[in-house]
């Protein structure tokens, strides 16, 4: 049995297919390969799934083969962008986070700024990147009740992720700082962070 025949899509309505992510596949590689496929309208890659949407009257052909090929390619063939984001650690939840994880605020900041992150998922809001790589000591469940308003540029953590809020919005993550000179989303450029990018935070003084 060929590799391709194992990638059986589940219909997601009449205009999309969804697959579980092939093991070891590189998200950015899958995205690039499928977006370029004829007849594909949109592609969303999450940590667990790949979803491709199209005109239901004209489903694209050859997608399974394209997906199998991209899954084999791995991350090796792709140049990885690295972005540095300066952060002022002045978020209203910093003290509470420190108390809950049992570290001084200074140490929370040091650990957050020391880690190297990778964009694992873009979703929830335009330009909202879920960054994997958070120091496991800083992992906390989301806030019990979301804040009605978090401002654009808020640097926050929740579960295994960190992120930068792209827009003013309600937010359930712990707000620990403010990005300086960085916008995760702009109406002119779209999302600043793309799937697979490497991200480092630098403490702004």
């Amino acid at each position: 049995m060929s590799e391709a025949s194992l990638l059986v899509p589940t219909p997601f309505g009449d205009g999309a297919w969804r697959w579980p992510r092939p093991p070891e596949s590189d998200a950015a590689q899958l995205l690039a390969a499928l977006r370029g496929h004829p007849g594909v309208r949109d592609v969303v890659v999450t940590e667990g799934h790949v979803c491709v949407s199209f005109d239901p009257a004209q489903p694209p052909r050859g997608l399974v083969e394209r997906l199998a090929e991209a899954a084999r390619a791995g991350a090796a063939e792709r140049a990885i962008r690295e972005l540095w984001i300066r952060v002022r650690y002045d978020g209203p939840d910093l003290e509470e986070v420190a108390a809950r994880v049992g570290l001084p605020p200074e140490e929370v900041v040091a650990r957050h700024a020391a880690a190297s992150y990778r964009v694992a998922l873009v979703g929830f809001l335009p330009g909202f990147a879920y960054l994997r790589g958070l120091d496991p000591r800083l992992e906390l469940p989301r806030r019990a009740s979301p804040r009605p308003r978090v401002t654009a540029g808020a640097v926050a953590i929740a579960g295994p992720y960190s992120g930068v809020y792209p827009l003013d919005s309600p937010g359930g993550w712990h707000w620990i700082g403010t990005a300086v000179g960085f916008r995760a989303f702009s109406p002119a450029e779209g999302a600043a962070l793309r799937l697979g990018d490497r991200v480092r935070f630098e403490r702004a003084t």
Partner: protein
Amino acid sequence: MTTRLAVVSVAGVVTVQDGGRPGRMHEGIPPGGALVPELLGAANRALGNPPEAAALEIVGGCTLAAEGGPLLLSLDGAAPRRLLPADAEEIGPGRAGVRYLALRGGLDVPEALGGRGTLLVAALGGFEGRALRRGDRLALGEDAHGEPMEEGVAVELAGEAAIRVLPGPDLERFEADALERLLREEFAVSPASDRVGMRLVGPPLRLRGGERGASLPMLRGAIQVTTGGEAIVLGPDHPTTGGYPVLATVIRADQGRLAARRPGAPVRFRAVSLEEARAAAGGRPPLLVRVASAAELPRCLELRHEVFVRGQSVAPELEIDGLDPACTHFVALAAGELLGTARLRVTDDGHAKAERVAVRAAARGRGVGAALMRALEAEARRRGFGELRLHAQAPVIAFYQRLGYVAEGPLFEEAGIPHRAMRRTLL
């Protein structure tokens, strides 16, 4: 003085919308587009605009006026009317919960990330990225390629007919009765609905486990169910990922019809096959495949004559081989028109065999043949056969392979045409 559209007053949410900005969901940007693309398209076409030109999407009502000169407008595809500077156009509720006012030439708002529509959550596109307010003045575009249509363009949104869904894709995350409830009970449109999603009021749909999972890709039409059991049908400005599982998905052809319903309106759902959904998306009547009645047999034979005798020069006496009375015949119909036929025969040595698979030339490439084969397989399976056999004409071997048939043995000639034997195991 340039001609402009002036907003005199607004009661509700009025935004500029167009065909959306597909192709950016990987940036977290929803596809956007009109809540009811059928009405946007009708209003634009009535004016000779491209169907997806930027126009006003009106939820609630508003009063508009022309400034600097007359405007030509269409509301929901109605016959184009001229609005003179002295007049005010008052727009109240229509048949649908949302209305579209298009102007000849379209609205001239800047394109942002591939579209002119308003995405409120991101303050993106439209008129300054926001809903319209009293005093706003909108410029007109030059995006009209055709002549206005005097009589307008009628749209049928099929009132309160059931909304068609495909079950899934997250069925395993629900209690067994959840889908049944969705398809059996009546729901109502909640007033807390917007372009992000339409909330439904109705019996709770129970999740298995009930925990919020990892973020999943989301789409317009997905029926998400919250941990509290509330159903939300995602709209054009939905988040591109979400943690709630999807019980069923509204087919593309019915998304506008659903979005057109006003708060309080009843909603029922009906499950359909992927084939039916895709036929509807192509604007075609759904395909129906079933066993032919005795009265339909002459029409089947006529179609076979057209395909095999006239189309492929098969001798008529070979085509009508005397075995028809012993076969089960199938018809593929769309809106009453016969598009295809096939017969299922049990051979002398006791095998189920598909024969005389004929699709009208004009209906090829639409899945008619595949639908016929699936029906034959279902019937053979029902009668206890473990496989279905056939003799495939050489040029269509690949077609049968896609349906899971395996070719065996050498090419041979039958009725002057090269064939190969094929078979598929029926599970």
